[in-house]
C-alpha cells in the first residue's frame, strides 16, 4: 500500500518535472498491484475466465456458430438439444446455440456502451459537484437525488417508453439509470483527495482545473470507478434483457438474449430448452462479471492490501 501511494505521489509530482517519463510507472504500479491481489482470489479468476470465454465465443461467432443467425429449417422446429443442435432449435427451426452466440454481441455491446455512457456522464457530473462544491454541488446532487428516487428498472422503462424501442434508446435508457452511482462515487472520491498536497502543487504551478481533475485527481479515484464499471456492465445487460423481454427494448428477430426469451415465452409449456439456454447465457456473463467485480473490489481496497 505504501509503495503504491508513493508511486502515485511521485507520478503526480514528476509530471511537473520531466513530463511524461514517470507517468507509466504509476500506471504499471496500479495495474500490477491489482493483478497481484486479484491472482490470489480464485473466484475472481473464475469470473475473469468466464468473461474471456464468453467474449471470445461471441466475437468469433462467425467461426464457432454452426448455423447462420437466421437460418431457418421449418422441418426441424422445436428440436431438443442434440449433436446437430447443441441447444436445440426454436419455433422457426433456427439453431439456438448459434443465435445465443450472435445475440451475445448485441447484449454485450449494450452492456458495455451503457456502462461507458453512464461512466462518462457520471464522472463529469461527479467531478463538477466534487471539485467546485457549493452551488454546483447542490444543484447536481439534488438532480441525482431525484433520479435515485425512481427505481432504476422503472426509470429505464419510462425512458424507453418515451424514446421508443431500439438498441440506441435501450443504451441511453439503461445508461441514464446508472449515472447517479458513478456521480456519487466520483464526488465522494474527489472530496477525499482534492485537498491533498499534490493537487495544491499542481495548482501552484498554474495547472488549470481540467488538467488538475483529469491528470491528478481522477487517476487517484480510479479504484471505485473500475469496480463500479464491472458491476454496471452486468446491471446493464440484465436491464436491457428485461426491457427486451417486456417488448420495450431490442425487438425480435434480433437475437439479443432478452428478445430471444421474449420470443420463446409462448412455447415454454411444451419446450423447456427454448428459454433455458438464452437465460443461462445471461446468467453466466453476469455471474462472471459479479465475481470479477467482487475480486476487483477486494484487490483495489487499500485496507485489504498486504
Amino acid at each position, binding site marked *: 500500500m505504501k509503495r503504491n501511494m508513493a508511486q502515485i505521489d511521485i507520478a503526480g509530482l514528476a509530471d511537473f518535472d520531466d513530463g511524461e517519463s514517470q507517468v507509466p510507472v504509476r500506471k504499471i504500479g496500479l495495474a500490477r498491484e491489482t493483478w497481484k491481489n486479484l491472482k490470489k482470489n480464485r473466484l475472481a479468476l473464475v469470473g475473469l475466465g468466464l468473461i474471456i470465454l464468453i467474449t471470445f465465443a461471441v466475437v468469433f461467432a462467425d467461426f464457432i456458430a454452426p448455423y447462420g443467425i437466421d437460418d431457418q429449417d421449418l422441418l426441424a422446429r422445436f428440436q431438443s438439444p442434440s449433436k446437430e443442435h447443441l441447444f436445440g432449435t426454436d419455433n422457426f427451426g433456427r439453431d439456438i446455440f448459434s443465435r445465443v452466440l450472435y445475440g451475445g454481441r448485441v447484449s454485450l455491446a449494450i452492456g458495455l456502451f451503457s456502462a461507458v455512457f453512464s461512466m462518462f456522464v457520471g464522472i463529469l457530473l461527479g467531478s463538477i459537484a466534487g471539485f467546485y462544491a457549493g452551488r454546483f454541488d447542490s444543484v447536481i446532487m439534488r438532480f441525482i437525488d431525484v433520479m435515485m428516487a425512481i*427505481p432504476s428498472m422503472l426509470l429505464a422503462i*419510462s425512458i424507453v417508453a418515451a424514446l421508443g424501442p431500439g438498441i440506441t434508446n435501450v443504451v441511453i435508457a439503461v445508461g441514464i439509470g446508472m449515472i447517479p452511482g458513478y456521480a456519487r462515487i466520483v464526488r465522494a472520491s474527489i472530496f477525499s483527495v482534492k485537498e491533498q498536497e499534490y493537487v495544491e502543487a499542481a495548482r501552484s504551478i498554474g495547472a488549470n482545473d481540467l488538467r488538475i481533475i483529469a491528470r491528478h485527481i481522477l487517476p487517484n479515484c480510479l479504484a471505485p470507478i473500475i469496480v463500479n464499471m464491472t458491476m454496471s456492465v452486468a446491471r446493464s445487460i440484465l436491464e436491457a434483457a428485461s426491457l427486451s423481454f417486456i417488448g420495450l427494448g431490442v425487438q425480435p428477430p434480433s437475437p439479443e438474449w432478452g428478445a430471444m426469451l421474449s420470443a420463446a415465452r409462448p412455447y415454454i409449456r411444451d419446450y423447456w430448452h427454448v428459454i433455458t439456454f438464452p437465460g443461462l447465457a445471461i*446468467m453466466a456473463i453476469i455471474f462472471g462479471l*459479479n465475481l470479477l467485480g467482487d475480486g476487483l473490489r477486494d484487490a483495489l481496497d487499500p485496507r485489504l492490501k498486504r
Partner: protein
Amino acid sequence: MLRYIMKRILMMIPVLFGVSFIVFCMIYFTPGDPAEYMLGMDANEQSVATLRTELGLDKPFFVQYFNYIKNIILHGDFGISYTTRRSVTQEIVERLPTTLTLAVLSIGLATMIGIITGIIAATRQYSIFDNIATIFALTGVSMPNFWTGLMLIIVFSVYLGIFPSSGFSRPIQWVLPSITVGLASTANIMRQTRSSMLEVIRQDYINTARAKGQKESTVIFRHALRNALIPVVTVIGISFGGMLGGAILAESIFSIPGIGKLMIDSINVKNYPMVQGGVLFIALGFSIVNLLVDILYAFIDPRIKSQYRRTHRPAVASQSANGTRRA
C-alpha cells in the same frame, strides 16, 4: 429524533416534485397527440381540437405542469386514463394492494431466509453449508428474475404441477411470484449478513460475552446480530427499489393485476397519464421506504439515536468528550 424525521419528510417533497417534473417532461416531449390516441384514427380535426382544449393540452408546457401538480395536491387527481376514461388514481389504488402484497411477501421471504442463512454461513465459515450458501448467493444475484420466473413455471407448474402459474387471488398463487421477485434480494441479504457477521464476531466484546459464559445463541443474536444489522438494513432498503422493478416483470409473467402489469399494458397502448401516475406512486413508495429505513437505523443502533439527541447540545457533547479524553 422527531425533528430529524420531520426534516427527512420535508426533504422528500422537493425530490418528489423533481420526479414529477422529469416524468412530466418525458411524456410531454414524446411524439404523438394524446387527444388523437383517445379518439382513435377516425376522429375529425374538430373533435380532436375540442378534446385538446377540454384536457388543457392546448396550454403552454408550464401551465400544463402547474395544473397537473395542482390537481394532484388539491384533489389527488393524477389525470384520466386514455383507454378506460377512468381516474388514474382510482385504477392505481385498486391495484396497489396486489403490488404491495407481492413486494411485502417477497421482502419478507428474502429477509427471513437471507438473514438466517447468512448467520449460519458466518458462524460456520468454510463449512459445506457456507460453501453451498455462497454458491447459491452468487448464482441468485446473477439470475435475471424474469427468467427465474419462467424456469419456476416450467419446473413447479408444468412438470410437477404443484403451484399455479398465474393469478394472485389465493395464497398458493403467491408462492412462485414471491420467490421470483425475492430471490436476488435473498442472495444480497445473505451475502451482506454473512460478511457483517464475520466482521462483528471477531470483535473483543463477543469474546467477552463468551468469556462471561453466555449461551452461544445469546452471543450471536443479542450481541453480534444487532451490531451486524445496520448494513443489512441498508441492503434491504435498496432491495426494495429493485423489487418494485422486479415486480413489474413478475406481474407480467404471472398475469398478476398489479401496478406493474398496468404500467406495461399502458406503455404498450401509449396511455401516458397512467404511466406518469404509476411512476409517481412507485417513487413515493420508494421514498417512504428509504425514510423508514433511515428511522429504523436509530432503533437498531443506539449510537445513531444518541447522535440525534446530541444535536440539540453539540457544545456540551464535545466538551464532555474532550473532558473524558483528558481524564
